[in-house]
């Protein structure tokens, strides 16, 4: 493992902008980069990248996969990574995100491939548009993938090992009332804002139980102070570690939205989207145990957890390919204060090397 090379790969990657959905140029760059390392790359019709490395010093025919997403949140154009060796971190100049989420993972995979003395066949999957609802993973051509297990690199600290995720339902709600001048003839109007607040008033939000939450995250209604607001849009969600509960809660919320509309005389349109279907992998399974052993080998105590946020891992699990999520050494992601911890990037790389060498 060459730390200097790891850092320079990382810096090179984050300098190429890839704000979702404008991540195609970046993905082409990674494809070219990895072809130089001797891989065959393929793009599916959505533009996700699948790269296959043959086994090295190994007779194993069982390939394993590593997955990162290629896109970043905004503001991610013109990133200037600053390597601060004194603090042991890589940060930005404060005007953009760093993009360590998820490019630290990509840099670590590249360094792992360069550093591992032996490994089984490997598949590297770079997905598009993860940050805007795992669109890449949702549209991934799973027939291109041979591996029976996937490590998704997308958590913060190297110790994090995610073996389960919540089911997550989004609701996009539109109330349509009737506009009228609010001072001259308010009785001719129907306020869509009033309909929406009636629903929210009757809804239990926040923490519902230990594994279940609900939120109305966005509420935009009306266009002018002096007009009865005709249109109101809400974005709501619910999540639960228990699939049945999540579905039941989303249906209850939907009923409350509709009831408020009926009682207010507005029209309503609801788009419901099952963003991710939850999964739970046994802590005793090979995919978990072997990674935990690799972590411990490098002095990291595994922090096995179940999370509520949807990652690309839920899509692999949904398609029958067990996947877990592991850390990459970044902090304060999705902010201009985002930074990567060099020692943690080294650790993750070493853990990956031990993992693939162990499977060779």
């Amino acid at each position, binding site marked *: 493992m060459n730390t200097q090379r790891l850092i320079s790969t990382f810096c090179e990657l984050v300098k190429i902008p890839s704000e979702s959905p404008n991540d195609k140029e970046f993905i082409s760059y990674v494809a070219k980069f990895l072809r130089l390392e001797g891989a065959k790359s393929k793009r599916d019709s959505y533009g996700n990248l699948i790269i296959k490395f043959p086994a090295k010093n190994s007779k194993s025919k069982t390939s394993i996969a590593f997955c990162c997403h290629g896109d970043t949140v905004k503001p991610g154009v013109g990133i200037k990574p600053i390597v601060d060796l004194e603090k042991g971190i890589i940060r930005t100049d404060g005007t953009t995100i760093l993009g360590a989420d998820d490019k630290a993972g990509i840099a670590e995979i590249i360094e792992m491939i360069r550093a591992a003395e032996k490994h089984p066949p490997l598949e590297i999957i770079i997905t598009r548009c993860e940050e805007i609802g795992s669109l890449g993973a949702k549209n991934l051509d799973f027939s291109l993938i041979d591996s029976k297990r996937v490590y998704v690199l997308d958590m913060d600290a190297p110790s994090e090992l995610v073996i389960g995720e919540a089911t997550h339902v989004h609701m996009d709600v539109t109330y349509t009332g009737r506009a009228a001048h*609010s001072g001259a003839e308010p009785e001719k109007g129907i306020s869509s804002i009033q309909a*929406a607040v009636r629903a929210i008033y009757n809804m239990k939000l*926040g923490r519902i139980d230990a594994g279940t939450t609900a*939120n109305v*995250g966005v*509420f935009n209604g*009306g266009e002018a102070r002096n007009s009865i607001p005709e249109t109101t849009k809400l974005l709501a969600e619910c999540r639960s570690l228990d699939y049945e509960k999540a579905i039941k809660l989303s249906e209850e919320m939907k009923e409350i939205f509709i009831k408020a509309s009926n009682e207010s005389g507005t029209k309503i349109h609801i788009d419901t989207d099952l963003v991710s279907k939850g999964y739970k992998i046994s802590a005793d399974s090979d995919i978990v145990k072997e990674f935990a052993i690799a972590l411990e080998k490098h002095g990291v105590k595994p922090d096995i957890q179940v*999370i509520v*946020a949807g990652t690309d891992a839920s899509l692999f699990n949904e398609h029958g390919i067990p996947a877990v999520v592991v850390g990459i050494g970044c902090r304060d992601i999705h902010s201009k204060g985002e930074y990567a911890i060099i020692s943690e990037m080294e650790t993750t790389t070493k853990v990956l090397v031990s993992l693939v060498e162990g499977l060779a």
Partner: protein
Amino acid sequence: MDKSRLINTFCDLVRIPSESPDDKEFIAYMENLLQKEGAKTRLDDFGNLVGKIPAKNSSSNEYVMFCCHGDTVKPGIGIEPVVEEKIIRSKGDTILGGDDKAGIAEIIEMLRSAKKHPPIEVVITRCEEIAPAGAEFLDYSLIDSKMGYVLDMDTPSDVITGGPTCIFYTVKFKGVPAHSGVSPEKGVSAIQAAAYAISNLRLGRIDHETTANVGVIKGGHSMNIIPEDAELAVECRSLNNETALKVFDEMKEIFNKAAKKFGATVSIDATTALEAYSIPKDAKVVQLAVSAMKKNGVTPDVKGIAGGTDATHINHNGIQTAVLGVGGRMMHSTEEYVIIDELVAITNIITTIVEDLA
């Protein structure tokens, strides 16, 4: 009254852009134009224009005021008026600017064609469309008139004698953001606090002269964050000033209680407060307009309205002022047009008013 001169004046005026607040160039043009009509002009500190025209064939020394606003809404740059047989419209990609330049053209034509008149003050205010700010900040010490007319309604029959107390305000709820799936208990939802408050408000028509509305809400940025901010554009209006203030207090209390209940904070900022006014129907300013309309074959429609105009501020500053029409339709849209017959009718009506006062 020279119809084609009136139309030409109007077309010249609308070609000069004056989207509020960028209306100073237009005011400068008007200053020049009024001076050519024999006016002495002054600009007040806010940039409002006051032009004084001496009496003509009259020994009256009592001023009468005519007021229009000089600004327009957007899109008002590059207006190309199209004169058709009965109407004047824009080419379709801008407003026309008949609101309020039709009124200005009518006043100019009145000055040119009246055979006699008392001393006249022409006031062109700035930024009516965004507050009405110009009339609020007008230097009333520059004005000698005790009565006047604002030209800013639609049809020649309009005589507006009253307007409501309007309290326009912004309510900002501030909660605490948190990831909605990971740690919702750490967050305070500004949307929930706002929704709770709005649920408890009396909205719409409250009584025959009082209304309230939450017209706009913008809350939260992301589905997966407990929303930190919710901002509401709210108003209440009443022809009865005390009722409006009472409703405003009641609303404020509901907003404050809701914030407290959810652990959010709330700030309430009144952006505009117009106080109701009402002119008696037998006041001279009303009767003169009614009589001038009848002389010109127009049936007057004397009424109060639910909105504020420059006349609200002007009346509160001791100048009894009614609002008349300008002959425009579909204002504040790219479909806006003026009706040529109505431009003529209104010019004739205000000419009759000043001749009757001479």
